[in-house]
């Protein structure tokens, strides 16, 4: 059972704190993806788990055992590097066998493992080639093969697909997903590509400036982002943010005033003393509804992007903000037309001044609220 547990892990380089009190528990056989903007510390966190960097503070446990002081090999880690880092002078076979031989595995086992690995990764015909005689995708597979040949408990990937072209990336992504199913080993995967994160992950860890913003399944992150940061980071096109003002609020819901839309009731709980504060409303592009508006009313469609299966409409708000709306293609509206905005109150998000998402009142309370508030 190879679960990984981080307990208040910190990493400082000199005086700069790169990883800040990160805690998480990764289950055995889970596929976890770290995402976050460039420089947020994804690679550093991965290298801490690998044992290539030392943990300044906190504990790292693998299989319930503290491994802070173990070497990567003792931790039972395999790692796939961004640049592949294949040994250029060794054949594919030797590359895959290198770690096994160092572990003093007997010759026959080495051979079996290498061939088995090669079969899984479809490298059978390439075993005698040198890395320089391989395509990018093949090199990538050799790198994966080398990492998994020793049957490590945990496989780590640092942006393994970033050197591949788009088509190959999709294909290799699928292969990695298949590999995870097949091997069932714990995998931790770093990327800044949210499509990779969403498609591969059992759970995603969103990192921001060295701390964890949110951990959850792709669906949780998409539907219930814990913060404005996560909401903005996950989803493409990006979530729209509109400054709004709270009119009323209690533990059953709230009423806000949306510029250009009017007053709306939302299921988010809002402490009464927060009424009057400026909040941010988050609406996904697909949750905006447009209806034609008369000349001089509503907002203007400033651009229409046609993508075949769908279209993106860009709307210019009064305060200059640009909103994106995802609609069916071809779009019913054209550039220059004016539209009235609306949204599904059940599907929007509300963020307080610090960017935290306001919690949604549970369904029972909500119906309660409706009966109470409807007349006013």
């Amino acid at each position, binding site marked *: 059972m190879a679960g990984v547990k981080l307990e208040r892990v910190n990493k400082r*380089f*000199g005086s700069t704190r790169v990883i800040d009190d990160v805690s998480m528990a990764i289950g055995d056989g889970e596929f976890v993806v770290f995402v976050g903007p460039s420089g947020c510390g994804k690679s550093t966190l991965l290298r801490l788990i690998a*044992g*290539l*960097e*030392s943990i*300044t503070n906190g504990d790292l446990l693998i299989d319930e055992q503290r491994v802070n*002081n*173990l*070497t990567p090999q003792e931790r039972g880690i395999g790692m796939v590097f961004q640049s592949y880092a294949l040994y250029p002078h060794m054949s594919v076979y030797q590359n895959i066998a290198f770690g096994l031989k160092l572990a003093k595995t007997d010759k026959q086992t080495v051979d079996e493992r290498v061939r088995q690995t090669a079969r899984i990764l479809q490298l059978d015909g390439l075993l005698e080639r040198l890395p320089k005689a391989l395509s990018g995708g093949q090199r990538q597979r050799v790198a994966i093969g080398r990492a998994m040949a020793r049957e490590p408990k945990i496989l780590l990937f640092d942006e393994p697909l970033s050197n591949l072209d788009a088509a190959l990336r999709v294909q290799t992504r699928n292969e990695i997903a298949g590999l995870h199913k097949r091997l069932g080993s714990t995998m931790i995967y770093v990327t800044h590509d949210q499509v990779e994160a969403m498609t591969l992950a059992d759970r995603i860890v969103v990192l921001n400036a060295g701390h964890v913003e949110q951990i959850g399944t792709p669906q949780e992150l998409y539907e219930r982002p814990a913060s404005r940061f996560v909401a903005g980071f996950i989803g493409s096109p990006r979530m729209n943010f509109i400054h709004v003002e709270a009119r009323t609020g209690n533990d059953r819901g709230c009423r806000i005033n949306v510029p250009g839309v009017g007053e709306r009731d939302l299921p988010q709980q809002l402490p009464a003393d927060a009424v009057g504060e400026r909040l941010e409303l988050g609406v996904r592009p697909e949750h905006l509804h447009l209806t034609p508006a008369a000349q001089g009313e509503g907002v203007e469609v400033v651009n229409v992007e046609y993508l075949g299966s769908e279209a993106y409409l860009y709307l210019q708000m009064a305060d200059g903000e640009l909103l994106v709306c995802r609609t069916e293609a071809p779009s019913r509206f054209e550039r220059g037309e004016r539209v009235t905005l609306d949204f599904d109150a059940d599907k929007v998000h509300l963020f307080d001044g610090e960017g935290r998402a306001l919690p949604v009142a549970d369904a029972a309370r909500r119906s309660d609220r409706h009966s109470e508030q409807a007349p006013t």
Partner: protein
Amino acid sequence: MATRQQAATSDVAADMTDRAFLQQQADSPRRERGTRVRRRRVRAAWLFLAPMLVVLAAVAGWPLVRTFWFSMTDASLSSLEGGQFIGLENYLVYDNGWYGIMADPMWWQSVWNTLYFTLVSVSLEAVLGVIVALVLNAHFRGRTLVRAAMLIPWAIPTVVSAKIWAWMLNDQFGIINHMLLGLGLIDAPLSWTADASLSMWAVIIVDVWKATPFVALLVLAALQMLPSDCYEAAKVDGIHPVRVFFRVTLPLIMPALLVAIIFRALDALRVFDVIYVLTSNAASTMTMSIYARQQLVEFQDVGYGSAASTLLFMIIALITVVYLYIGRRQLGGGS
């Protein structure tokens, strides 16, 4: 001398990359502390350095200390251990008149000779080296061949090149005299190596011939790194090529040229074999190294010879320190 040149060249080169490397390091620092891996690596690093450090201590550190010590004794070659401590008497002592190296006109003559040799030969090598580098940098057919030819003087052992030139400069049968006579430049054969007024020039001729390729190669490396766009700009502006050289090229290759010059100068200051072979211990070409070795080996006076060695070491160390200091300053403020 060739040996020292090579050592010098590689230092230069390595020094240059070191700078580039430090620069790169500053951009993406990778400093770890504390992991098992890390500690193991540091331990391994010292373990891996140990043999080299032991050897360097045995052949450089300890002998240097012993040389300093000998310079304050009256040891002789036959009884190294029997030397008595005599303070600084080898350097200078008053005993009804001044004695010691500092009072030896021959020493001062050899200091002067060394400086003169260094100044003249290194200047010539710098000028010639730049010219050769410019030629090698031009695109023409047979460039590789010419470059290979330029390496030949560098590859020939100093002793051999000194012998070859000694033969070519031979007063009676030498081809140089033959040529000069044929061209009508001289009326009678010159005795290059024996004539006190000419022998220094004979040494310089050989040294320049041998060392110019070294300077040329370093300058050539710098030339090949020059950005071509500033040349194109100059071309577009219609600036005369000679002006371009002095205004654009020379300032850009100056760092490499300076490095080459300094290393050549360090070599020239310790020159030994070319002079030993060409003119032996003649006073007119006596340099500090020749002087020190003569005292040490031929006169068996280890104390006195060590004192001369020590002084030579001091002079070179001073120049080295100044160079390192300037180099560091450039490193700090250059980028």
